[in-house]
């Protein structure tokens, strides 16, 4: 018995070590790839400018938020775009940490983002059903991959991915209170995070059906479980707390939505925007336009959401569908970023890419190569990546 247990235990310990070491390895590789891209894109800039150079577009808003908090009204800088559009949890967390660290805000933010994304990768392990190849791809994707600059600079994506991962790990274990508490932070990180509450309800319903073999008595069963109801009402508290703050500070609890007008975003049918993007052909050559890349990312996101549904991962599919669809009512802006940070979709994609040994090897190579190439586009102000 001792002999039989020994190898299994050793294997288990090795696997546990890999779960911690692999993301660390990709964290280092990713930093090296992006630094190399930075040196190639901006050879005249000194090495110390690396972290600042990776901070583009919305990153600038977050840096200012971490330093000075939310704008009052009228906005002191005399613009219409209030920073109330940006949800508070991550920038204010970085703002709190910068008070105790002696670094510039963007350096502190980048350190916190690296640690947060590393934690997100490690914590995601239970979502991979002991599939180490898929987990390896996922760790590479988050920390060295084509969109790792979102997860390692100052965007809300690191915290969004971490809290979303915790939600789905908790739901996998039918720990509704844990999922509810993680959703509090998720819904204080980005507005779509609040829809994890729906995933919680769906998972609880599915668990009920799995336990009883029927949908009958679902409402009654929910009512007999006050802890579940408590989790459901706790989950959106991140959003509600932010609304209460805005109401106190600005007088408008929906200022995060109303201020979108200042960005001049269009409003319309998501299908129309995706079609418009797909058919925005380049004037010359065959290289797809920014609109086509964005629309392509949306289509890929929805295809993978359908696969989630086909695999009956309803809680994940619902969250991905709602979180991808809602922003599309305001056009294609940031769709690549939103899709790249959608945990159920990226976890599924890595599982699919790890299904064959040769595909795994090819995918890992592709992730690493793109982890160098796409940051070049990012540093070149490619608008599709905004």
């Amino acid at each position: 018995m001792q002999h039989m247990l020994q190898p299994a235990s050793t294997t288990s310990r090795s696997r546990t070590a890999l779960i911690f070491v692999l993301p660390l390895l990709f964290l280092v590789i990713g930093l090296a790839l992006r630094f190399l891209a930075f040196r190639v894109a901006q050879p005249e800039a000194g090495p110390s400018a690396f972290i600042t150079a990776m901070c583009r577009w919305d990153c600038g808003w977050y840096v200012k938020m971490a330093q000075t908090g939310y704008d009052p009204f009228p906005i002191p800088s005399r613009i219409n775009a209030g920073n109330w559009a940006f949800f508070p949890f991550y920038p204010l967390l970085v703002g709190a940490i910068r008070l105790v660290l002696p670094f510039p805000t963007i350096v502190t933010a980048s350190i916190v983002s690296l640690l947060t994304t590393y934690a997100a990768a490690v914590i995601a392990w239970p979502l991979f059903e002991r599939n180490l190849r898929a987990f390896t791809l996922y760790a590479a994707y988050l920390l060295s991959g084509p969109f790792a600059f979102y997860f390692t600079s100052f965007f809300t994506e690191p915290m969004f991915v971490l809290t979303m991962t915790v939600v789905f790990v908790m739901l996998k274990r039918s720990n509704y209170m844990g999922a509810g508490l993680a959703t509090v932070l998720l819904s204080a990180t980005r507005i779509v995070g609040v829809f994890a509450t729906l995933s919680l309800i769906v998972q609880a319903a599915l668990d009920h059906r799995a336990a009883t073999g029927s949908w009958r008595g679902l409402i009654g069963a929910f009512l007999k479980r006050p802890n579940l109801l408590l989790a459901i009402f706790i989950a959106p508290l991140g959003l509600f707390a932010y609304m209460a703050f805005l109401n106190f500070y600005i007088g408008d609890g929906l200022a995060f939505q109303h201020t979108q007008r200042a960005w001049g975003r269009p409003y319309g049918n998501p299908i129309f925007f995706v079609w418009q993007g797909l058919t925005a052909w380049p004037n010359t050559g065959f290289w797809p336009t920014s609109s086509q890349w964005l629309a392509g990312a949306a289509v890929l996101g929805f295809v993978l959401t359908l696969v989630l549904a086909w695999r009956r991962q309803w809680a994940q599919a619902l969250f991905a569908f709602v979180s991808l669809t809602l922003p599309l009512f305001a056009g294609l802006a940031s769709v690549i970023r939103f899709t790249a940070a959608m945990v159920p979709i990226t976890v599924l994609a890595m599982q699919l890419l790890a299904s064959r040994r040769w595909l795994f090897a090819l995918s890992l190579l592709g992730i690493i190569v793109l982890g160098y190439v796409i940051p070049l586009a990012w540093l070149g102000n490619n608008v599709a990546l905004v």
Partner: protein
Amino acid sequence: MSLLSDPKPGSPRFVATYGAVALLALIELVILWQAIHPNVPEAYRAYYIDHTTTCMRQPVTGAYTMGTTIDFRSGGSDTTELRPCGWEGPVGNGMHLLGETARLRFATGTTTEAMTLTLEMTADDIEGMSDQRVVVSANGTPVGTTTIPRGQTVTVPFAIPAGVTADTGLLDIVLDVPDAVRSRPGDSNTRKRSIKLTEATLTPN
């Protein structure tokens, strides 16, 4: 019994948990009620909530030396203190009027005499765009309308009646552009395009 396990119906913990649920539901309802009844200044409501204007006035001084010609092209004058809202730029060939209305402000001091405001403007040249009407008012008094053919530049004098700035020492000019167009379907009306302003001069008569 673990706190994570559901309490037995009727037990004190069952009642307490239900009480917490009810309290949370009440708090969330109150926050929702407050959110759909915002308590904000009129300018905030008009721009962000009711969408009755695309031009939300920002506090500017209007600092201006009477008779000076202001260049709104890039590399020209710093016009920040003259532009309360509705402008984007400058770009090489002028300051874009963005939306359906834009404002200019000139600090005129204590003068009560009549003035002439001369504006040099160019209509944008966007496919499907018609000639652009510009309706100008000064401190609420209509002072004229001009029509600029698509892609053309015009210089138009507007007579400002005597006494309109007597109360405040400020001349607030509103330019309405009723023919402004969306350059892409579905665009917000805050992004409508119409004209570019290239020069402005205010002279006493």
